[in-house]
């Protein structure tokens, strides 16, 4: 037989075929498993509606006040009612601001004027993280980003809050 016709030997052909079939079978087994494992990453997060926090806009002052409200949380197969908290106030321009109380350092609970030593600031008791009234982290304290801000709307004079969103780096 001529050289040109022998480009793929019988042995090579069988090797390729077996490797191909084997690879296909392995992929067929692994693909569903991997897809299952990464499902939470690829799932589009179902953003819930904004919730009525039972706070009249008229009751919002220029002093941050703590607002608690309940939402129905769906965690896979587990549904539960969880309490969410925000610090809400009106700034100089009468703009309503709602900050998440979760410290951007390690997730502790931040309180408005939580320390007598730092008036007019949000204070985190865990590692002394501080934020100015506009949510910006005080440089030199542990947190590296401003407090998250809740999506919000006003309807019929009541405040509605949604997800807490990150603000830009300070």
């Amino acid at each position, binding site marked *: 037989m001529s050289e040109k016709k022998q480009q793929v030997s019988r042995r090579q052909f069988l090797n390729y075929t077996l490797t191909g079939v084997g690879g296909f079978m392995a992929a067929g087994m692994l693909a569903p498993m991997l897809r299952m*494992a*990464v499902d*939470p*990453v690829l799932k589009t997060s179902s953003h819930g509606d904004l919730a009525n926090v039972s706070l009249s806009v008229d009751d919002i002052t220029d002093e941050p006040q703590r607002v608690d409200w309940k939402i129905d*949380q769906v*965690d*896979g*197969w587990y549904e539960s009612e969880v309490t969410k908290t925000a610090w809400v106030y009106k700034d100089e321009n009468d703009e309503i601001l709602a900050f998440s109380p979760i410290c951007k350092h390690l*997730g502790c609970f931040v309180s408005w004027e939580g320390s007598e030593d730092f008036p007019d600031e949000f204070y985190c008791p865990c590692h002394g993280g501080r934020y100015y009234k506009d949510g910006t982290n005080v440089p030199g304290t542990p947190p590296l980003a401003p407090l998250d801000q809740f999506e919000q709307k006003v309807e019929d004079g009541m405040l509605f809050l949604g997800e807490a969103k990150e603000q830009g780096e300070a």
Partner: protein
Amino acid sequence: MLQKIYDWIDDRIDITPIWRDIADHEVPEHVNPAHHFSAFVYCFGGLTFFVVVIQILSGMFLTMYYVPDIENAWKSVYYLQTEVAHGQIVRGMHHWGASVTVVMLLLHTLRVFFQGVYKKPRELNWMVGVLIFFIILGLGFTGYLLPWDNKAFFATQVGLDIAQQVPFIGEQLKTLLAGDPEIIGAQTLTRFFAIHVFFLPGALFALLAAHFILIRKQGISGPL
């Protein structure tokens, strides 16, 4: 009787040479604490393995009572800890053994480092060892959540926040570990359980096999 059973098996599959290859090998005098007491530093690797075996056994028995479900996880741990005979001991072994594993592993690493025996031709085994170190830390991290008490929950929250700091893929990595972008809950617990009980031990066995095969292949380095 035992000899007869052994002979019967040996007759058929000739296990004596296999057994000889695994167990019968020379331990050089300079690594034997019976000859030089200071050679106890060579024991840390073996002690790490010994504690890992305890972890595997005690962990296997713990899963007879443990449930990876947020309603029942804490209750099942509380039950096995307070109601089950010797449950406190088995969980204690697993709990304290986890710390002892890390300590022994660290001592073993320090010995290898300061004796400089990670050098050629043993770099590959050093790398395998570093992977084993990460696996053990992963086992510690995932196991910490399983009792589902407050300490476990908040430690995991911090740990996931750290994972989130990874450049570019941080968010995805956190979601992959926690099972949800926001919530540390039902899906986090099942995931951590699966990782703790199946994925990481599987990887650990493979790496330990490689670690030991390499030791046998390359032998123990000469005295300093």
